[in-house]
């Protein structure tokens, strides 16, 4: 598997501007929303797919793959963009997003090869990820589980149940990534259910936790690498400080892009902002 990964990934750059371009193409084609929360996790996904996730480019359901659980299913277009890079999603699925009878939905759906969970109802994914990590450990497998949760999603109680259980079981094969973009549906998280210092909370719950810039690819890579080799028996958490709508200035930290659809002008403007047709 190791050699397969290195060879087959050599052409896969998961370049963030390209991923954002795919998201814009899908959002415009499907006239859909949730662009901001897809853009905040682009670099996180890029680094995971580029270097840290074990997968088979030819088989999204290969039995020894690592598991990426997108619990904040609203950001699924970012994951579709990565899957498009790999070839699990074809151009037609991008240009035909949301066409009647199409397969790719507006939220993560486990029936789509490459996606592990059905999410969007928030607070589900982390528990599933903990079950997967427990299963891998029972099997003596080296498969790892990465769960991406939103900061707004941390309002949901089952996340905290899952954190307690993961720490109790010392699931060191679990990495939780909190996309801390500071917003939830109706406004700023600190004005709705303030989360305070998330890394401190994870640490108190028994995790190894760090806070990083969630758009700094080198920092993401370095943190994931360090977690892999630190020998700690605790589960891991990355609190990724991100910007909702990152990459398109008129979308950044503007929560209206949780709900707004692109028109021809904003689509063109957004493409120009991420580097035009070079992206």
């Amino acid at each position: 598997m190791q050699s397969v990964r290195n060879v087959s990934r050599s052409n896969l750059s998961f370049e963030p501007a390209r991923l954002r371009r795919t998201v814009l193409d899908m959002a415009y084609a499907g006239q859909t929303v949730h662009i901001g929360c897809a853009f905040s996790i682009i670099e996180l996904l890029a680094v995971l797919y580029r270097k840290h996730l074990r997968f088979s480019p030819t088989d999204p359901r290969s039995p020894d793959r690592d598991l990426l659980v997108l619990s904040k299913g609203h950001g699924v277009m970012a994951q579709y963009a990565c899957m498009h890079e790999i070839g699990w999603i074809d151009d037609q699925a991008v240009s035909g997003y949301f066409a009647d009878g199409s397969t790719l939905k507006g939220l993560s759906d486990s029936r789509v090869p490459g996606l592990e969970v059905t999410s969007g109802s928030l607070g589900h994914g982390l528990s599933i990820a903990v079950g997967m990590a427990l299963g891998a450990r029972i099997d003596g497998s080296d498969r790892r589980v990465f769960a991406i949760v939103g900061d707004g999603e941390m309002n949901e109680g089952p996340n905290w149940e899952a954190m307690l259980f993961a720490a109790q079981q010392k699931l060191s094969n679990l990495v939780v990534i909190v996309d801390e973009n500071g917003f939830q549906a109706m406004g700023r998280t600190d004005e709705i259910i303030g989360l305070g210092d998330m890394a401190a909370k994870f640490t108190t719950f028994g995790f190894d936790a760090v806070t990083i810039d969630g758009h700094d690819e080198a920092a993401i890579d370095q943190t994931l690498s360090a977690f892999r080799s630190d020998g700690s028996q605790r589960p891991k958490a990355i609190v990724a400080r991100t910007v909702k709508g990152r990459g398109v200035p008129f979308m950044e930290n503007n929560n209206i892009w949780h709900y707004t659809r692109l028109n021809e002008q904003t689509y063109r403007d957004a493409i120009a902002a991420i580097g035009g047709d070079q992206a």
Partner: protein
Amino acid sequence: MRQAFSDSLVRIADADPRVLLLTGDHGYALFDAFRKAHPDRYINAGIAEQNMVGMAAGLARMGFRPFVYGLSAFVPVRVLEQIKLDVAHDDLPVIFVGDGAGFVYSHLGTSHQSLEDIACIRAIPGMTVLSPADRHELTAAMDHAHASGRSVYLRMGKADLGDVHTPETTVDVTRFQCLRPGREGGTVILATGPIATTAVRVADQVEGAAVWSIPSIKPFDTAALATICQTAGRLVTMEEHSVMGGFGSLVTEEVSALHPLPVLRIGVQDRFSEHCGSYDYLLREHGLDLDTVTARVAAFDARA
């Protein structure tokens, strides 16, 4: 019935190394045998049912065969969305065992009484819903649930009401179980769960009444019901569950399409328990005691 549950669980786990047991910190002493036989396959998920069901889904995705045990007030009702999205959506092989269904926790009040679980769970696509009447049906239900490899809810009601089958009986839980043949054109009682023991005693006093136990609510043997309707004069359904959305509703839905007949639905009306007391007391409060049910069935049977 609880002993049969414990025995079945150990036996199934002996034969299948992928079987795990998850409990939401419930089942004291019930799992002694399992813990002794398979200590490494016993997972107490703590008092955190939502996480427990999500974890069961994750474990099933990793190739395990989890049994998830809880009180039926919590599993499935508290975790209905986790069952729907995390488990049933992909028909993962997770078996949910809801113990103490109905009025079993009669003294504890509304939080522990479960009278809406069938209505909730049967609306979820693809779920198998089993409701055994006695230890023989329970044992067969456990084996069927595991062999099916599908998402299953197994409803365990009052466990000490005795048997409706003889030890020699081989139960196929997917089929209607004839407990008492009746006369043509007469009253046919269809019961699910341990209240079938009451149904048999009612039939002792209503001449010609037939009694069937229906351990599989979903899939439901519509063909068997159609056959019964050909010769029945009227139907009575019995369940320790709300009359809204449960077994009686199911029978009525089917009968209305197949072969319309008068149907008397005996169950819990649309209200919570007012008082606390013994199990028998609560049955009386809700009109599910033998005398009340017998009187209702006899009056219904006397209709032209």
